[in-house]
């Protein structure tokens, strides 16, 4: 359990948020051209990193806005929070 600094609302308990998984997975531009392997890669394969992970979160019980977060999954320490569309910080 940790506290998340929502870029729109400020610090709130993590239980107000919904995790949205790995961030910056780009939706294929030409879905009809994709091979089965590429579909599997896009839909199912995940980095599942132990360490610094870039991920999406939604303030489900607050402003309901999506944003990105950089978190160390080995100790749940939050390194950075940034809005959708912003350039991911290098950690």
């Amino acid at each position, binding site marked *: 359990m940790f506290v998340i600094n929502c870029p729109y609302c400020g610090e709130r308990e993590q239980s107000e948020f919904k995790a949205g998984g790995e961030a910056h997975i780009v939706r294929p531009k030409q879905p009809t051209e994709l091979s089965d*392997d590429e579909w599997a890669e896009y839909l199912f394969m995940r980095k599942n990193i132990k360490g610094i992970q870039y991920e999406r979160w939604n303030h489900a019980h607050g402003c309901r806005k999506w944003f990105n977060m950089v978190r160390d999954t*080995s100790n749940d320490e939050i390194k950075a929070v940034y809005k959708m569309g912003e350039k991911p910080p290098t950690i």
Partner: protein
Amino acid sequence: MKNKYSIFSLIKNAFSYHENWEKAWKDPSPKKEYDAVIVGGGGHGLATAYYLAKKHGMTNIAVVEKGWIGGGNTGRNTTIIRSNYLWDASAGLYDHALKIWEGLSQELNYNVMFSQRGVMNLAHNLQDVRDLKRRTHANRLNGIDAVYLSTEEVKKFCPIINTSPNIRYPVLGGTLQRRAGTARHDAVAWGYARGADAMGVDIIQNCEVKGIKRNGDAVEGIETTKGFIKTKKIGVVAAGHSSVIANMAGIRLPLESKPLQALVSEPVKPIIDTVVMSNAVHAYISQSDKGELVIGAGTDDYVSYTQKGSHDIVEGTLNAILELYPIFSRMKMLRQWGGIVDICPDASPIISKTSIKGLYFNCGWGTGGFKATPGSGDLFAHTIANDEPHKLNAAFNINRFVSGDLVDEHGAAAVAH
């Protein structure tokens, strides 16, 4: 087996105040080379090594474990064993395991305290009733014992359940698998470790894998904290850390690792003699032989390797427990912990070859791997020894995420994954 456990060995050792029992397994240093190396000394890994030695004659093998035997998810689960899964592939897999459980203590000469006390799954709304009835029929078509119970029959089987129609999620019925139950999870790891060790398997603890050496498309060995070990076959059974190992080998897995929590209460006299699970309110409960209530909570929705988990998950589970069992309202909880579970998109495991020759993965068991321990080990050993899956685990290959032939047990398996 070198030193058989029996009433006579117990008496013999009593004369020396139980101070001279032989060690259950040795503590060897790794050799330079093995025919196969199993990464992960939990129940599944040790069972794999046991069956590789016993059924496939591969005794020049090692199990490497970064911590101690059974110190991971093997010792963190809520010990529930059942096989009432919906789909044919899952039913085959889990019932194969359940059949091995039924004779496991005798086979290992080690009491795993397997107790077929029954597992009951509750329905709380009309859709639950329909789903559970459908699953009961599917189970019986697959030869798995299952009965559907009315609310009155649920109450009769487990009298402490609150079956009042006026609670938030009333009990509308349930299913019962009588062959299902629990086992002592540590004993399973210890029993398999002892059995494998007796056949010559090296069990190497405090030995963490740091890298996987490849030569083109084949494996050559593993880098560990105790040096390089050469081998042509690597079976990875690393549960929550499967993706970490896969990363070392340069392959991708469809897994997310999340904390799953459980907790136990102070010990009390026998009060609940079965296992009751409830999907809709996500609470499951049983009582250990020590008298503690063993309560399973849900997973957090974020990736984490911290073995902690969030408090609100536990709170939600205990709310549900208290509504269903008001008698526990004054119980004190003793301990809470988390384990890191690797969850597949279809909530079914992967027991499979990979694109790299000699590299095999047994992972993705998510929240429900303990029940499958003996079957998983048996089928994974078959896959490693023959470089081909057994027909019971053929459906659980990694390639199903490419072909789309998923084994979707999300929610259908009677408990939320």
